[in-house]
């Protein structure tokens, strides 16, 4: 039993000083995606269901390669930040919540790297 007040218990611990980092990053990535997402979408849709050689030719072009790499890195960051909020809002059990947060923090970074790697491999013609 402690007689400390709630205020006393947290006093001096301070904030992590990154309270607005998530908010700002979510919006910066949103702004970037206004350009990146449509620029990625159109050539992707044109190549879907197409020849393998045409797909390689498209993403060997520096513009399409850069747009696609940028799209994967920025989009998956935006996605991770968004889903983090969903988890924070709806997943309440402490262990499940922690498991979801860890999965969320790792998985989307892995997909971002995988997507970017695929484009680099195609672009460099390996």
């Amino acid at each position, binding site marked *: 039993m*402690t*007689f*400390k*007040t*709630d*205020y006393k*218990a947290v006093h001096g611990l301070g904030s992590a000083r990154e309270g607005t980092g998530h908010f700002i990053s979510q*919006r910066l990535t*949103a*702004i970037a*995606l*206004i350009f990146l*997402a*449509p620029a990625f*979408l*159109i050539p*992707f*849709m*044109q190549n*879907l*269901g*197409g020849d*393998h050689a045409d*797909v*390689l030719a498209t*993403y060997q072009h520096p513009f399409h390669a850069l747009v*696609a790499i940028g799209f*994967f890195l920025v*989009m*998956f960051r935006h*996605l991770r930040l*968004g*889903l983090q909020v*969903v988890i924070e809002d709806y997943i309440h059990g402490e262990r499940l919540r922690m498991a979801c947060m860890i999965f969320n923090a790792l998985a*989307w970074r892995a*997909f971002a790297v*995988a*997507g970017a*790697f*695929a*484009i680099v*491999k*195609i672009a460099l013609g390996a």
Partner: protein
Amino acid sequence: MAGNSTPNRPLSPHLSIYRNDMGMMMSIIHRFTGMGLAFTGVLLVWWFIAAATSPDYFATADWMLTSWIGKLVLLVSLWAFWYHFFNGIRHLRWDLGKGLGIGESNRTGWYVVTLSVLFSVFSIYLAM
């Protein structure tokens, strides 16, 4: 701990006491489209990894995504994307403190719904 905590204070939002309205539905759909597009993002990476791996693997992935169920998933994703895209812009405008009135908010909501359908059709047209 002693003192200041008030554990029984009312929580917000109490979704069940609200009548459905435009703003609420738009907000829920924004979340759902964002969550759904996570799955589409995984499919996209898979398709590109396949293309980077071999012609055979690409043929498999491309066949899956252009099968009728693949096309259905991508068609819904396309609309979800354009909805999330335009509603995201609506959100950014709110962040600037603009368009927050109920009337204007409902109006821009309908713009988002309309544009999401138009751009879905338009992007399919562009891709053909």
